[in-house]
């Protein structure tokens, strides 16, 4: 007998639908692409300074809405590494990489793939392969993460 579908997959699908609905609202209401790195990056390097209020309010929503949902979740633990060197290196790579590529998992992944964007698909292939390689090297070979 097949086991039932793991509950994590169902939560994943539900969460994904919420994420995509957020992207749909941002696109159809405000005419904007919901890309986290672009929204953040435009504030940091000031290229999006003319729309700073919209960006800050969006990020506030991302930051605040998980808080009332804590009771929903099995455990509020992100299991993040305590190794600051890893966190700093990873943060720098994510910051630099997403700005160079002009998008991350939300912009290239969710918003790009859903319109069959060549750039979104290529970006997603590269960051998934690179992520897989990082896990092989740092988990299986070096045992750091």
């Amino acid at each position: 007998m097949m086991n039932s579908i793991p509950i994590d997959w169902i939560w994943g699908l539900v969460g994904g639908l919420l994420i995509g609905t957020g992207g749909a609202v941002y696109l159809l209401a405000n005419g904007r692409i919901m890309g986290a790195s672009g929204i953040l990056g435009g504030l940091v390097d000031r290229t999006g300074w003319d729309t700073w209020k919209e960006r800050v309010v969006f990020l506030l929503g991302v930051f605040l809405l998980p808080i009332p949902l804590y009771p929903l979740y099995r455990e509020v633990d992100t299991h993040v590494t305590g190794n600051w060197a890893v966190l700093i290196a990873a943060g720098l790579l994510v910051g630099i990489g997403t700005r160079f590529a002009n998008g991350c998992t939300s912009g290239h992944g969710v918003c790009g793939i859903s319109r069959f964007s060549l750039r979104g698909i290529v970006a997603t292939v590269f960051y998934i392969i690179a992520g897989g390689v990082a896990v092989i090297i740092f988990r299986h070979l070096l045992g750091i993460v």
Partner: protein
Amino acid sequence: MQRLFYAFVAGGLFGAGLFVSGMTDTTKVQGWLDVFGDWDPTLAFVMGGAIIPMFIAWRFVPGRKPLVGGDFPKLPRPEVNRDLVLGSTLFGFGWGLAGLCPGPSVASLSYGGVGHWVFFAAMMAGMAITPALRVSLDRAVPAE
């Protein structure tokens, strides 16, 4: 004001979705990338779920205007170039290393502990130095 309201709704849905999907749990993200270990397919369900409403939303774009006015964004030319490939590779490497990408890093700031602030600060620093890095790279290796 309307624009800010919808921005908050969109951000809220995004943050809530990242939270309930488990995508702020770094082990689930690294588990998805760990094809030679104990592979965790959750991320595929999240991506699939997120693409459905967005796919529908894109159908409404041609010939229309955004609800609050203005125009829909001009989409980039479908061009694969150095910055896209190099950037995505660097990003993916960092993503695998910590199990965090920009959206979840913001969504988890309230409950992830000090490590998430460290990652967030480093990510912002990386974004801040990118324009200068791009200039240096252009000088060293001209982008076609």
